């Protein structure tokens, strides 16, 4: 575990393995000197408050965490739209929309990160030939339940927002339920397959 302390404002934690387990364990410990824990594939960010002291870093190094459990597979009902972003996706990949769709529905994705927005999924597993960089200037408006390509990820926008990803379609059902915590029932590492409806 490698921990970098930014002026006692926040920590950036990296680890070659089990970073998500580390992040989950820190979150569940509910340390009084921690206000937020954000877990991504390559870093965990821990926001600190006035109760933090440098000596407390030992608590992180001594943390016990559970190993990864088994993952579930979900089918996500989607439909591909005529969004204007398709032009860029076709141009960058060199493939036709039909070919791209065929590749997508035969891919098994896995949930890499929860982040960005509530109900936003970063899905891993996109074939390299389908990577399309984020837009230089984010669009001011992406509709809720849109699916989009952003770099190496396929993403799902459960709520509408500005966004720099390339929109290619929508999911038929919202995976976000804000009446309880956790608001998304899937776990990191779970598998997703796209089912065209």
């Amino acid at each position: 575990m490698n921990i970098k302390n930014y002026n006692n404002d926040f920590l950036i934690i990296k680890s070659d393995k089990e970073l998500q387990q580390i992040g989950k364990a820190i979150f569940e410990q509910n340390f009084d000197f921690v206000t937020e824990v954000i877990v991504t594939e390559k870093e965990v960010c821990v926001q600190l408050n006035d109760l933090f002291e440098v000596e407390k870093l030992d608590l992180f190094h001594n943390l016990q965490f559970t190993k990864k459990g088994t993952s579930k597979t979900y089918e996500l009902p989607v439909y591909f739209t005529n969004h204007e972003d398709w032009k860029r996706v076709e141009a960058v990949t060199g493939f036709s929309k039909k070919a791209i769709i065929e590749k997508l529905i035969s891919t098994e994705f896995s949930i890499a990160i929860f982040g960005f927005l509530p109900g936003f999924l970063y899905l891993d597993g996109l074939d390299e030939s389908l990577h399309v960089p984020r837009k230089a200037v984010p669009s001011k408006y992406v509709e809720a339940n849109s699916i989009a390509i952003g770099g190496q990820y396929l993403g799902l926008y459960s709520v509408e927002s500005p966004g720099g990803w390339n929109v290619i379609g929508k999911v038929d059902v919202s995976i976000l339920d804000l009446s309880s915590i956790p608001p998304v029932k899937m776990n990191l590492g779970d598998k997703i397959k796209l089912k065209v409806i």
Partner: protein
Amino acid sequence: MNQIEITKAGLMTSVQDLGRSGLAYYAIPKSGVMDINAAKIALLLFNKNDETPLIECTCIAPEIKFHAATKIALTGADFNWKINENTVPLNTIIEINKGDILRGAFAKNGLRGYISFANDLEIEAVFDSFSTYTNAKIGGFDGRLLQKGDVLKWKNSIENDEGVTTIRIRKGPEYDYLTEVAQKKLVTNIYTIKPESNRMGARLAGSVLESSKYQLEYSLPVLPGFIQLPPNGLPIVVLQDGQTTGGYPRIAYIPKRFLSIFNQIRLGGKLRFSTDTTCSYPD
């Protein structure tokens, strides 16, 4: 000259802060303000934190002459404060002109009141505190109550010329992506807050920053206050409703205290970033 002069001492007027904690083990008491809530209001009005001196007034108000313009706030008991001949209210920021005289009478609705200042008074800290402890003659202004003739200076404001607000920033995880030229530009550019800014983020207009990369390989965590550099080279500041992860380099961040100040800059308003730790606000 940036200073105040005590022209009447009042009853028990002293320099205090929120206390000199942790030394009771050595029989050194905490000292500090007697009404911590009134003192905190006085400090918060200027977005200030614990480590700032203010003046505590007891029962009978002091009289203070201002030798330069500044702003103050008055909280706690009602001393019927006046600037020159005009009554001024409690619990708000008051503009002071050069030559103004602050005076008051007997305290009503309480015993103690506080005067805070936009510009920090230059008081020497004793064991990390500006509080006065008269028994041992330490802290505050020479370890004693303020008397007629005392002069207290203040440092220059960091909120300076032409309505440009200075915002302190610290280096972010991807600060090194910026070229050397861009690192200098970051703290010399004057930026303007674009009208499309909102609670999710503020987009800044100004001279572009050159970077070795404008996209991260992976999406990484962001917190409110983080400054991102998208491909167009113009910074975006992540704010309270902003996303929790992002794919743009995090070149710097605005510490919480300065974020309050940043979020009060109007749309179209101007700002400059500073990494200068000798800025008047202590951290």
